[in-house]
Structures are given as structure tokens and as C-alpha cells.
């Protein structure tokens, strides 16, 4: 039982840290947050299945329970997707740095238009 409680706390902690980081304007922090939250989900997927001996073809030797392979397949897919998205985020962070020379995302120029300061300056 303690195992599941520790896992639950770990998942919750990873989620909290990950989502906190994703709320930042710094794209590298967003990436790190996304990775942490991704790990949280992978753990969550892992505990959604039943544990046991490896699900290899053939009968388990002494009647033990066989591990559920589906969550593992789901985790594998989720890792691949995380990889693709992380690559994109890294490319975007680098491009953003090239354009703005800052790690953070730029201000919205059109916002000044709605603040009423410069009605003609904002592009759509």
C-alpha cells in the first residue's frame, strides 16, 4: 500500500512542478515543465495497469499474475510524442532567442491598441 501512496505523491508533485513551470513566459522553463508533467503522466499510466511477471509469450511458470502490457504500450507512445513536442519547443525557444535576444516570449504589440494608447500602431 505504501508503494502506491508514494507513487501517488510523486505523480502529484511532478504534476505540480511541471504545470508551475509551464505557466512561465520563458520557453525553456515551459519545456522543462512539459517534461516533468510528461513523466507524471507516464507514471500515472504505469500505475493504471496491473503488475506482475513480464508478459512474454508462454505460460507464467508458477501461476503468477502477468503484468498488463497495454499501459506500457501507451507509455511508449506518449514518450515518442513527448520527444517530438520537446524538439519543437527547443527549436521554437532557439528561434525566439534569435529574434528577440531574450529567453522570454515577446509582448503582444496589439495589446497597446486595446489599451487605447496607439490606435494606428497595432498590426492584426
Amino acid at each position, binding site marked *: 500500500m505504501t508503494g502506491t501512496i508514494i507513487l501517488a505523491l510523486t505523480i502529484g508533485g511532478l504534476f505540480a512542478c511541471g*504545470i508551475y513551470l*509551464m*505557466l512561465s*513566459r520563458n*520557453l525553456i522553463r*515551459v519545456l522543462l515543465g*512539459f517534461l516533468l*508533467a*510528461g513523466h507524471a*503522466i507516464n507514471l*500515472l*499510466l504505469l*500505475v*493504471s*495497469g*496491473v503488475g*506482475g511477471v513480464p*508478459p512474454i*509469450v*508462454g*505460460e507464467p511458470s508458477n501461476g503468477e*499474475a*502477468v*503484468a*498488463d*502490457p*497495454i*499501459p506500457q504500450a*501507451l507509455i511508449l*507512445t*506518449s514518450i515518442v*510524442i513527448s520527444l*517530438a*513536442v520537446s524538439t*519543437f*519547443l527547443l527549436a*521554437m525557444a532557439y*528561434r*525566439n532567442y*534569435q*529574434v*528577440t535576444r531574450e529567453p522570454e*516570449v*515577446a*509582448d*503582444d*504589440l*496589439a495589446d497597446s*491598441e*486595446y489599451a487605447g494608447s496607439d*490606435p*494606428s500602431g*497595432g*498590426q*492584426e
Partner: protein
Amino acid sequence: MSWLLPLAVILPLAGAGITLVASRRPRIQRVISLGVLAAQLIVEFAVLVQVNDTGPMVMHIGGWTAPFGITLVADQLAAFMLVVSTIVAFAVLVYAISQGMADESETPETPVSIFHPTFLILTAGVTNAFVSGDLFNLFVSFEILLTASYVLLTIGGTRERLRAGAPYIVVSLLSSLIFLSAIAMIYAATGTVNMADLSVKLAQLPAGIVATLQALLLVAFGVKAAIFPMSAWLPDSYPSAPAPATAVFAGLLTKVGIYAIIRVQTLLFPPGSFGTLLMIAALLTMLVGILGAIAQSGVKRLLSFTLVSHIGYMLFGIALASQASLGAAIYYVAHHILVQAALFLGAGLIERVAGTTVIARLGGLAAAAPVLAILFFVPAMNLAGVPPLSGFLGKVGLFEAGVADGRVLALILVAGGALTSLLTLYAIVRVWGRAFWRPVPEVTGLEDGRDALETESGRPLAVRRRAQREAQRRITSEEAARLPIGMVGATTAIVAVGLLLTVGAGPIYGFTDRAAASLLDRNVYVNAVLGSGAPAPPGASGTDEGTGGGG
């Protein structure tokens, strides 16, 4: 015939691969993309005809039967959405190709070579979302189309697009995380991710757990469908993308979210559950969206807000969960895909002709570009729900369903819907009146100032201004005459298909009504996937949950 289903997904994916390899040969890219989408459209028409005749079409990938393998399913709703979405994707592709070819001579270094593969992957993701029969496959399709949309939104990597893309990407990532957690918890509770299987097994769970799972899924899909209060990302990010990308996002991406909500609400969870909450969300989405639209100073932002606002109508239909309301909602989804895509393409044409989409600087376009004036006017009136166009028919269907429902909240929503419709008319007529109908506005303040200084020495101010305005009008007319035929043709085609929805309203509405009927009768879907000889295994979820796939 069920091999048609994977074909509809594989075609654009294969096309994406080929166009990526041929990224230095734009002519081959164009031929492949157009050919692939045309073939996909034919396949989907065949699916639609087949499904209409014989009921849901099911394909078990790799021969693994339903609860274990990946299942592709097309019922009437899915087949209908497939055809409408591919029509829009095809027209938008023609528009984009025409725009790209026209621009190529001016800016050869534009990185258009990734446009074709990304666009085709987006189409594949949308198609896969409509035909997927299990939740995890739906998640994967969402990721496919979202990742493609990240690339399309930030294409070119300019400062403004990166700025607009960042919130969109973070919000989408968060919603994907919520969706995947929901899937993990659903799997933990039931031991399956197959939707037909879930339909049987979720009914055996305690109500509290089911409500939690449903809430998680609704939040995840609500973000994608841009339902208030999870809609703020949309008007912020869409306007800065290139016109074809915005058109296809506006037409398809939010509707994939709506499709997912229809699917889980009708198939997985108790009928009409969360109805009150969804109705309140629908009302707020309509009103907040349209009030935002009225305040906008740019055409594209205004259109983005009307997009959010009209999602409320579809949500209203889903919340009522009767056959009439769902049928009207499905009809409205098709109408809205076509109209919103046409309007965004029209906005792209306005930008091309007048050089801006800021309403204050537009004017005199009706004289300069009469064809464009009509092309924008028809979908604008359609969006506002002016009779006898399809927007009117869809709204009447929803209002009738609301009155038939009889709850006080439903009646309030009918009133709110009518008000939103009127406000939409106001917002969109304001755009049309200013951009097309009024004379060319006085040009910028700087030149005015110079005019004032030079008045004494030169000609009188009024004469100079008239000459200036005349020159402006002539430039605009020349730009309008130079509009590429493909861009105008593609926009015309979407407007025409939108009108077809009005002309053929009888049979099409009948079809969506039947689609709604088969959505409400879950056995149609469940039996098609699990086989009619496999009824609910009672008590099976308790003991062998999760171990079924082992060995």
C-alpha cells in the same frame, strides 16, 4: 469496404512523406498534395455512401478484435465530418498554393517547402480523429494535428508569430496532459480504452467516479473546442497565422473538439449528464464571444471572436441531448466549418487587396473589388443567420429543440442564441459596411499634417484629398484585378458549398437527424464494434480488469 477507413488516413500521411522528400521541387509537391486530398475526398464520399446504406463501418487494425486492438469506426456523424473537413482542406490547399505561387516571384526565400507536408499531416490528424474508435487513438490524432498546427502557426518564425504561437502551444500542451491523465484514469477504472467497450463498462462504475472521468474529458475537449472560460487562447493566436492556416484552423480544429464532445457525451456517459453546466457554458460562450467581437478593430480578430461565440450554439445542441438538438448541432457544425473558413479566406483576400485588415483603415472595397464584396457578404450573412441561409436553418433547428425541451435554462439559451445572432449581424455588418461600402478613408495623419502645411501654397485641401483618395482607389482596384484566380476560385468554391448546404437542406438535415438518432441509440455503435453476439459481460470488470491483454 472497411479497408477504405485506414486508406483515408494513410493517403495524406504518405503524401506528407513524399512532399517532404520532394521539398525542393514545388511543382511535384503541389501535384502530390492536390492529388492526395482529391483521392481522400473520393474515398470519404464512398465511406459516406456506404455508411448511409449499411450502418457503421468498422476496421480492426491488424486483425486484433475490438477491446484489444486499435479500431477505426465511421458512423454517419464521422463520415459526414470527414467529407466536410476534406472539402474545406482541399479548397484551402488550392488557395494556399495559388497564394504561394503568386508570392514566389517576390520572396523566393520564404520557407514554404514545409507547408505541404505539415498541411497533409494536419489533414491526416483530423481524419484519424474522426474515425478513431478508441480514446488513446483519439489522443494520438489530437497530437498529430496539434503538432502540425504548431508548425503552421509559427511558420516563418517571425517575432509576431512566435509571440502568438507560444500561448497557443502551452494551452494545447496543458489540455493534452489533461486528456492523457483522463485516459490513464479511465484505463485504471475499466481496463479498456476502446469506446464501445467503455460504453458498456463505464455504466457499471459508481456515479461519482464516472462524473470525475467525464469532467476531465470535458475540460480537455473544452479547451480544444474553445468553450468559455477556456477560449481566451483562440482570438489571441489565430489572427497572426497566414490566412490559409487560420482558415483551416478555424474550420477544422475547434470542430474536432466539438466532435469529441459529441462522441463522449453520447457514447460513453449517461445521456444528458452535465447538461445544466454545458448549457451555462454554451450561453456564456455565445455572449462573451460576440461581445468580444463587437469590440475588435481588426477583421481577423473579430472573426476569431465570432468563431468562439458560435461554438456556443453547437454546445447548446449537445447539452440538450435530444435527437432534434443533436441533429441541428451536427448540421450547424457543417455550416460553421464552411462559413468560418470562407470568411477567413475572404479576410486574407481583403488583406491582399487593401494591405491591411484593420477596419479603421479599410474602405471603398466594394467599388474596387466587387467580386470580393460578394464573396465576403454571402458567408457574412450566413454566419449572422439571415434567412434562408444555412445559418438560419441550423439556428431554427436548435431553437425548436430548445423550446421543445421546455426547461427554463433552455428557454433562456434560446433567447441568448437569438440575441447572439443579432449581435453577430451587427458586428459583421459593421465590418462589411466599413470595409466595402463607405468611401476610402482619409489616409494617415502624417500626410494630413503635411497637407495642412502646404495648403496655402498648393491646391486647396479638399481637391488634394480627393486626388489622394482617387489614387488610393486606383491602387486598390489594380490589386484586386491582380488577385490570383486560384485564391478567388477556392473562396468561391467554399462559399458555393456553403450555399449547397442551404439548397440541399432537406436531405442534408434529414441525414444529420438520422445521424443524431443513431448516436442516441448506442447499441448501433457498440454492436458494430464488439459484434452483435457480444453483450455486456456482467461483472467482468472487477476481477480480470487489465489482464485481458496479457499473453
